[in-house]
C-alpha cells in the first residue's frame, strides 16, 4: 500500500522538477512559441503544417538565423483541445518568454485571442476565420491565408464567370455545404451577402459530423437545383461527398472546395471522384513548381523527403513562419527591442511581400491584418492540382 503511495509521490516530485525550465529574453536565441495538432482531430493536415513550420526554423538557423540570431522554436502537440492550448500558451508566454506565437485551429485561436491581445503577442494560425481580422477584437492576430469569407466570394466569382463562359445565361444557383462548426459557418454571412448582391440564389446546408453517407444533403442540393456547390469542410467528409455525388451521377454540378478540403489528401481519399473538382487554394500546391518552393524542396530532400510527400500544408506552414520571421527581421533591422508591440508594428509595415509565387503578395497595415486577399483556383486533372485561373481578388 505504502509503496504505491511512494511511487505516486515520486511521480509528483518528477513533475515539480520537470516544470522548472525558464529562460532569459535578451540576446541568445529568439523564442517562438507554437502549438500543433499532431494527435487530435485535425492531425492529418496539422502534421505537415507543423513540419513546415519546424523545417523553416531549422533551415533558417542553418543559414545563420535572423540577423545572426538563432530562432528557438518551442512547440508541443495540443491534440486540438482548447484547455491544452491554454496551458501551453500560458507556459510559453510566462515561463519561456516567447515573443511571437504560431497557433493552429479556429477554436483555440478564438479562445486565446483575448489573452493574446492583453499579453501583446503577435499570433498567426492556420485559422482564416473572418472573426480574427477585427483590429479591435483581435489586435495581435495576423492572417497569412485568404479568409474563408474571401475564399467563398472568390469561388462565387469564378463560378459566375465559368457559368457565362459555358454559354449559359442568367446567374447560376449555388449551395454552401459546410462543417457544422464555427470553422464551417465562418464564410457564410459574407458569402451570402456577396451572392445576393450579384443576384445569385444561394443556400447553406450543414454536413452532420461523423456522417457515413451524405446522400440526403446531396438530394437537398438537387431539390434546390444548385449548379455549383462550395464545400467548407475537411478532407474526409468532402471526399465522401464527392464519392456520393459520383454514385448519384451528379456530373452536371460543379463542386468547389475551400482550402481545407483542397489538397493532396482529398485526391487520395476521393480517388477518381475527385477528377474535375475545383479548389480555392491560397497556397500553391507542390504539384506546381514555383520559386518560393525551392528552399523548402531542398531542405526536404536533405532530410530524405520530398515536397510532394508533405504536400501543400507543409508549404503553408513554411511560409506562415517565413512571414512571421520577416516581422522579427524588420524589428531587428530597425534596432528596436524585440517586444510584441514592436514586432506587430513592423509586421504592419509589410507591403507586397513576395512569397515566390506560393501566394499572392502579402501586405499588412495598422488597420488590416488580413494579409492575403487573392488566390488562384485549381482543378484536379489526372490526379493533380492544375491552375485554371489567374489570381482572383475578393475585392
Amino acid at each position: 500500500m505504502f509503496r504505491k503511495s511512494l511511487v505516486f509521490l515520486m511521480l509528483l516530485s518528477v513533475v515539480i522538477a520537470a516544470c522548472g525550465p525558464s529562460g532569459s529574453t535578451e540576446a541568445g536565441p529568439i523564442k517562438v512559441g507554437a502549438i500543433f495538432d499532431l494527435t487530435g482531430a485535425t492531425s492529418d493536415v496539422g502534421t505537415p503544417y507543423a513540419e513546415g513550420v519546424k523545417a523553416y526554423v531549422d533551415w533558417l538557423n542553418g543559414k545563420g538565423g535572423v540577423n545572426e540570431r538563432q530562432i528557438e522554436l518551442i512547440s508541443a502537440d495540443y491534440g486540438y483541445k482548447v484547455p491544452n492550448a491554454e496551458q501551453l500558451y500560458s507556459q510559453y508566454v510566462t515561463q519561456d518568454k516567447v515573443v511571437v506565437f504560431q497557433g493552429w485551429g479556429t477554436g483555440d485561436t478564438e479562445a486565446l485571442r483575448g489573452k493574446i491581445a492583453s499579453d501583446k503577442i503577435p499570433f498567426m494560425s492556420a485559422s482564416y476565420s473572418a472573426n480574427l481580422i477585427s483590429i479591435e477584437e483581435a489586435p495581435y492576430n495576423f492572417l497569412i491565408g485568404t479568409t474563408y469569407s474571401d475564399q467563398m466570394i472568390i469561388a462565387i466569382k469564378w463560378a459566375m464567370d465559368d457559368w457565362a463562359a459555358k454559354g449559359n445565361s442568367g446567374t447560376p444557383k449555388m449551395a454552401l455545404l459546410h462543417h457544422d462548426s464555427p470553422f464551417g459557418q465562418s464564410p457564410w454571412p459574407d458569402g451570402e451577402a456577396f451572392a445576393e448582391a450579384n443576384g445569385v440564389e444561394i443556400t447553406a446546408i450543414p454536413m452532420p459530423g461523423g456522417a457515413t453517407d451524405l446522400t440526403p444533403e446531396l438530394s437537398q442540393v438537387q431539390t434546390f437545383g444548385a449548379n455549383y456547390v462550395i464545400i467548407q469542410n475537411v478532407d474526409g467528409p468532402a471526399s465522401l461527398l464527392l464519392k456520393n455525388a459520383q454514385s448519384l451521377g451528379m456530373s452536371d454540378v460543379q463542386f468547389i472546395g475551400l482550402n481545407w478540403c483542397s489538397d493532396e489528401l482529398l485526391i487520395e481519399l476521393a480517388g477518381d471522384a475527385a477528377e474535375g473538382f475545383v479548389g480555392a487554394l491560397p497556397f500553391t500546391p507542390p504539384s506546381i513548381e514555383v520559386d518560393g518552393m525551392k528552399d523548402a524542396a531542398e531542405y526536404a530532400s536533405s532530410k530524405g523527403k520530398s515536397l510532394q510527400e508533405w504536400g501543400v500544408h507543409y508549404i503553408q506552414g513554411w511560409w506562415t513562419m517565413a512571414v512571421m520571421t520577416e516581422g522579427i527581421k524588420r524589428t531587428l533591422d530597425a534596432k528596436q527591442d524585440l517586444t510584441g508591440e514592436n514586432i506587430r508594428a513592423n509586421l504592419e509595415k509589410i507591403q507586397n511581400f513576395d512569397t515566390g509565387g506560393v501566394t499572392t503578395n502579402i501586405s499588412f497595415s495598422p488597420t488590416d491584418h488580413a494579409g492575403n486577399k487573392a488566390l488562384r483556383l485549381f482543378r484536379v486533372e489526372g490526379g493533380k492540382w492544375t491552375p485554371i485561373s489567374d489570381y482572383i481578388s475578393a475585392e
Partner: protein
Amino acid sequence: MQSGIFHASYQKDMAFRHTPAQFIRLGLVLAFALIFPFLANNYYLTLANQIGVAAIGAIGLNLLTGFTGQISLGQGAFMAVGAYSSGLMAARLGLPWFVTIPLACLITAMVGALFGVPSLRLKGLYLAIATLAAQQIIEWLITHWDALTGGVEALVVPAPTLFGSAINTDFRFYWIILICLIGTTLFASNLLRSKVGRAFVAIRDQDIAAEVMGVNLFRYKLTAFAVSSFFVGLSGALTAHYRTIISWERFTLETSILFLAMIIIGGLGSISGSIYGAAFMTLLPAILSNLGRGLEDFVPAMARLIPFLQQAAFGLVIILFLIFEPEGIAKLWRDVKDYFRLWPFSY
C-alpha cells in the same frame, strides 16, 4: 498509540472533522491556498485556476454520480448552460458578474432537473444514454439557436469588474475561483451530513430499499440533479468569465467524459477525491508535455514519437490507476494517512 477512531457520542460521529490532525491539515491547505498566488507565476496560476474550475464541476458531478449513483454524460452540456447563461446575461444585458453567476447556476439547476426526469424510470446504462441525449440536445440548441446564443460564433464575455477594477488577470481571478471552490466544498460536505445527503446515499446503495424506508425517490433524484447541475453551472459560468471568450467546442461530450474520468480517478463518492481528480486530470497533460520536452532534448531522434507517447501515457496512467487503486486518489491518500498514524506498528 491508537488503533482507530472511536466515537462516543452522536455529536462526535457527525462532526465535520474528527481529529486534531485533520484540522491542522485543513489549516495548512488553506494557508497554502492563500500564499500560493503570491509565489506562483502566471503559468502556475493558470493551472491552479483550471484545477479550481474543474474541481467545482467535478464536485457537482460527484454529488450526482458518486453519491446518488446516477450516471451523467451531460456534464459538458450543463457546463455550457451555465457558461452561456452567465455570459449572455453579462454581454447582452450588461448585468454584473456577481448577479449573472448565481442566476446562471439556478438556470443550470432547473435545466439539470428537467433532464433528470427520466432518471425516475431509467437506471445505469439507460440513464447514461438519456443524459447523452441531453448533451446532444443542448449542444444542438447552442449551435443552432442563433438569435439567443449567437450560434457557432464564439461568445465574448466582458471581464468581471469589482469596485471599478477589472478582474482580468490570473492572479485576480484566482480569488474568485478560490472562494467559489471553498463554498462548494463546504456546501457539498455538509449536504452529505444532512438528511438529503443520506437520502442520496441510500438511493445509490439500493433504491428500492430506500423507497421502502420512505425516501421519496422522484424528489431526491431530481434534487440530486438540480444540486449537481447548480455546481456544474457554476463551473461553466466561471469558465465564461475567466476565459472571456467561449464557444460550444469547449463543452462537448469529450468534456463530459473527462469529468467522469476525474471523479473515477479521484474517488467516487468523495468530495476531496473530486478535487484530487480534477488536479490530476488537469496536471497530467502539463506533466506529460513537460516530460516530453525534457525527453526531446535527451533523445532528439524520438521527437516525432513523443506526442504519441504522451497520448499512450495518458491512457496508461488511467488504466493503471483503475487497476491498482479503483477507489481513486482519495483512497490512496487515506492509506498514506493510516500508515503514518499507525507507524511503526502497522498491521
